[in-house]
């Protein structure tokens, strides 16, 4: 798919196509969760895949899986975007859209979701990143450790702390 029509796709091209098909939505969800800006998330996701495409032949399996490698690229692109925003002092965070909760859901569900969103909004960026990697992108704990560059134990511990924090925040709100 990524190789031009006149070229014979290489192993790297095939692997990239598989990676793209499987992880496009996960990458977007992770970036959107980290940036909390749908428009910026689309730009960063596209940039991440473009970088991954241009570097597809330099992937080294000894340093991790393709998925970890891709999310590392996406993370760098997202952090660059955060830095750029900081320089421009135009931090844009999408407000929680209360109306987005489907009206057919019960009031209790709506309240729980609102509480969860409020709790998510209160998280620090590093904590929000863990949530995005685990629950939005669906990465395993070893994959999260590989993307962030920490040990698997450390990743599990940090993730547990964030969950605890969210649980407490939701309970307090409820």
């Amino acid at each position: 798919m990524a190789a031009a029509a006149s070229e014979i796709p290489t192993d790297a091209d095939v692997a990239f196509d598989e990676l793209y098909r499987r992880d496009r939505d996960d990458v977007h969800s992770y970036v959107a969760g980290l940036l909390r800006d749908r428009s910026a998330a689309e730009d960063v996701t596209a940039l991440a895949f473009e970088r991954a495409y241009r570097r597809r032949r330099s992937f080294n399996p000894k340093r991790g899986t393709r998925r970890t490698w891709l999310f590392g690229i996406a993370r760098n692109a997202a952090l660059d975007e955060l830095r750029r925003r900081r320089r421009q002092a135009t931090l844009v965070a999408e407000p929680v859209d209360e109306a987005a909760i489907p009206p057919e859901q019960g009031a209790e569900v709506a309240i729980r979701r609102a509480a969860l969103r409020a709790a998510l909004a209160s998280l620090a960026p590093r904590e929000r990143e863990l949530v995005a990697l685990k629950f939005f992108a669906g990465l395993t704990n070893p994959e999260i450790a590989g993307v962030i560059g920490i040990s698997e134990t450390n990743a599990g511990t940090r993730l547990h702390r964030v969950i605890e924090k969210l649980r407490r925040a939701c309970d307090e709100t409820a």
Partner: protein
Amino acid sequence: MKLREREMPLDPEVERELEAIDRGLGGEPVDPDLEGLAELARALREERVGAEPGFAARLDQRVADGFPRPGRLAGLRKRLTAAPPRRILAPAGAAATLLVVVGVAVSQSGEIGGGDDGFSTQPVPQPADQPTVGEDAAGGAPATGEATETGRLGGQTTSGVVQSSGRSASEVPPAKRKIARRVDLALSASPDRFRDAADGVLDVVRDHRGFVVRSSVSGSDPDVTRSQLGHASFELRIPAGELPAAMGDLSDLGHVVSRTDGTRDITSRFVSVKKRIAALEETRQNLLRQLAEAVTPIEQESIKRRLAIVEEQLSAAQADLGAAQQRVHLVPVSVTIDADPALAGDGDAGGWSLGDAVGDAGKVLSVTAGVLLVSAAVLGPLAILAVLIWLVARTLARLRRERALDQI
């Protein structure tokens, strides 16, 4: 703290809860006490923001097109960036090494010479104002105080001797300057060819309209012992116009051991002598006029005596001028020939032999090794510096990115 977290295993309860989260996300049953945690995990999963269909379609198209770059240089850039950095690094490093090697080799190329035929005379710079050094009027060998430049060339020695006589007549154009030259040539020949070489000197002198001032030949018998090997010396005069051709012919007579070329700017000497002659001529004319006007015999006698002195000085000055002119037009050439048994069997003493080839090959190898060593000395520190800079830049970039998560 981070270190402790890394080293310590996960708390069993934490591990159990993390497993419950994973099972909850996977839709698998969990322990009743952890059902709330699994539900939270599923709720978080539902907060995931999906890609807009329009965005997904646009990105699919860009991927299908291979992320085309806008602009005219897109093709070139694509080709350059298509190759991974590691593949570019090797050719780039090789090119840089080659560049350094060529640079060093060029600077070292003077060390490599050809065979005996490669003998060439170094250009001798024109002298500037320098004090007079001794020289006999007949054009003999220069006295002490010569500045000699000696260089190695094909296993032989060649020298250029630069001298200046008296103050420089700076007003004389370079083309009209009077340059006195001198050449000393040392040859060796195999004992069986020694006599031919010595005879050849006389033939060369005759062919080039020169003459022999002095010659000496001894021990030419091939059967004599080593201590009685042949030796010949010649003191020649060769017309300046014939000198290059004559030296070429003389060099062909045997193996050139050394050649020394000396030049001396004697323009100031010419100018000085001519001025002296002009002044003496004027004085002589004045004295002749005075003599014609003299009345008394005593006065006439006095003028005649002075006239004789002036004419004597004039003759000496003219002789001096003639000697200087001869010194310019006839170049003193000293040739020595020694019989050398080591050259026996060398059919072509002046050619490029197998021995010369082996010698040159050795020089090429030694120069190549030196060039590689110098290149390594230059590129090694540069490579280390580049790696350090790259590591520092990479670390700084990573720290800056991580800081972005702290400063929101």
